[in-house]
């Protein structure tokens, strides 16, 4: 057995030599879920990064140095996220790491980067507490806690809400934390919650919950759901004769929702850091380039990944890389907090996380979300 293990581990360590690096390359780790259920987010994120890498390198990279993304699949599992992080930090010797895809994986992998003094940069982690891990943890994805109150305020103004019903997935970290911030925001704005319903991952039939919600006659239904369940919920709600609008979280912000729910999505209000109809030239250029490269529409996750590499590129332009890994990693981490950038997701800056148990945390995204409404089968800005 011992010989097997040794040879297996030798084979493992051999993998480092597969990607041959040239002298001026800037190696950046990209740990995303490329297989498994979380890959529906991980793959668009990776695509956004690949596009950004291609564009940056086409323009001569960073002061003439090419950006090389060292890509690893973390399968949306915490142990793999840790293994991948360690491989990227200690073996591939990358300058910093983007990812992992899910918040739970970041909770597992973040401490590894923190201990090694390497920047861990999440582009899709929205759970609260991520940046409590420490000052090397950054994210460009606004927390639900930042997006939801804005969404709700806009919805109240538009719809004149008094009482709402809620439906959310209670076995998923993303939808549960979405629910938590919605509930707080509803309380803060004195909106009564008449009924709260839950479902589990993989459910397709929500009619029992919706029938109960309908009986309470809410003014709107709050649905911090992912788009897969969201489309089913919308369709079934309309079939049951529920006509009130839905208010969604980050998960609703995808062309998939409209594609799958069609007319059932009409009137739905969504808050999100990215808006495909945002007419800014950066965004329109991004959408066109993404379509050309991948033959499909980008979503919020690809836009956030795309912008994140440009944010880091800005920081890299400001520092002088010495070739001393520890020194360069520290220089990058020190340069990042001050970066401001306007990209596909609009204006972006970092905001230091509040102290946690007296210790400084990392950096959250400081970004104004878009609030929009589905009108004639399209997302339109809610004014």
């Amino acid at each position, binding site marked *: *057995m011992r010989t*097997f293990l040794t040879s297996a581990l030798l084979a493992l*360590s051999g993998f480092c030599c597969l990607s041959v690096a040239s002298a001026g390359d800037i190696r950046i780790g990209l740990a995303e879920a490329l297989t498994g259920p979380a890959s529906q987010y991980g793959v668009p994120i990776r695509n956004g990064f690949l596009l950004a890498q291609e564009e940056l390198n086409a323009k001569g990279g960073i002061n003439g140095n090419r950006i090389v993304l060292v890509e690893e699949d973390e399968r949306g599992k915490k142990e793999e996220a840790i293994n991948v992080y360690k491989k990227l*930090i200690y073996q591939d010797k990358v300058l910093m790491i983007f990812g992992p895809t899910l918040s739970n994986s970041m909770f*597992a992998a973040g401490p590894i980067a923190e201990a090694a003094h390497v920047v861990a940069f999440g582009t899709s982690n929205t759970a609260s507490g991520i940046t409590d891990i420490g000052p090397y943890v950054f994210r460009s994805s606004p927390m639900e806690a930042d997006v939801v109150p804005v969404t709700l305020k806009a919805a109240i103004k538009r719809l004149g809400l008094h009482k709402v019903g809620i439906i959310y997935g*209670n076995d998923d970290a993303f939808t549960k934390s979405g629910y938590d911030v919605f509930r707080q925001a509803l309380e803060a704005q004195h909106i009564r919650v008449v009924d709260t319903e839950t479902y589990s991952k993989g459910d397709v039939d929500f009619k029992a919950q919706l029938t109960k919600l309908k009986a309470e006659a809410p003014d709107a239904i709050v649905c911090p759901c992912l788009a897969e369940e969201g489309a089913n919920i919308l369709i079934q709600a309309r079939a049951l004769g529920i006509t009130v609008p839905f208010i969604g979280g980050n998960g609703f912000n995808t062309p998939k929702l409209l594609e799958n729910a069609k007319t059932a999505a009409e009137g739905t209000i969504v808050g999100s850091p990215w808006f495909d109809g945002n007419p800014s030239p950066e965004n329109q250029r991004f959408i066109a380039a993404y379509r050309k490269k991948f033959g499909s529409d980008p979503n919020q996750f690809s836009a956030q990944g795309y912008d994140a590499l440009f944010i880091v590129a800005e920081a890299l332009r400001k520092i002088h890389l010495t070739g001393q890994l520890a020194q360069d990693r520290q220089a990058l981490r020190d340069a990042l907090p001050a970066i401001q950038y306007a990209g596909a997701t609009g204006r972006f800056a970092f905001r230091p996380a509040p102290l946690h148990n007296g210790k400084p945390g990392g950096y959250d995204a400081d970004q104004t979300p878009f609030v929009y409404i589905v009108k004639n089968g399209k997302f339109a800005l809610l004014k």
Partner: protein
Amino acid sequence: MDWSSWWDTYSTLVLSIGVYGMLALSIYLTLSCGLLSLANAAFMGIGAYMSAIATLQFEWPFAFALFLGTVLPAAVAFLIGIPVLRLSGVYLAMATLGFGEVVRVVLLNLDITGGPLGLNGIPPLTTWWHVVLALALTVALLQALRRSRIGRAFEAIREDETAARLMGIATDRIKLLAFVLGAAIAGLAGGLNAHYTFTLSPGNFGFESAVDILTMAVLGGIQGVAGPLLGGAILTLLPELLRGLQEFRMAANGLILIAVVLFMPQGLWDPARFRRWRRSRGTRAEA
């Protein structure tokens, strides 16, 4: 690559090999008694949550936390084992699967477990010698059991439960012992795992993990303690070794499972096959 950077890179993988070895041994224990129980992932979860709550929220010493993480699942196993172990075969498998789902749903709905968000920021307390010690103790215990009267009773029950009862073996008690000990080992493994992955969520302990654990034992073989350890090591390393296959990585996993069941029904570690090989090589050498 020098030793320290090798260790920095692969320490978690090495710890996982040990911990999954323990989990495979925990299911080997029940299998060696003829019980197909799929509750070990749930017991692992109970142990992991218990010990993580102990260190994270009460700041109790690690050793005590691990102790609690071993005892609580054993106690739960004792309580449900009494009614459940009356079932056998597929029925037992399904009942323990149902129990696992109930545990998952409970973990999702309790406040102290953090619901679907789970527990984060668990202190990194597990070091290599904790895992080595726990694994050594487990192996020693199982070897001692195998050689004892209890071990022979396990075997008798696996071969023919009715005959074993007629022989005067207290089959109910022996089966309960295997079930409870298996739960304790799985719980300890869970406690160790929680303190080097820093985060727990209920999804870590569902059907998929139950199946993973079973697969490790079957892949390695259940003729002795070496088999489950080998199976645990291979299935922990496999995803790393198959990285090059990208999205078809899991397909290789599935194929390997099928191949082992079809062509090596006793698992990879099969002393009888080794003896056959040695004999055939011996005869060839003579000729």
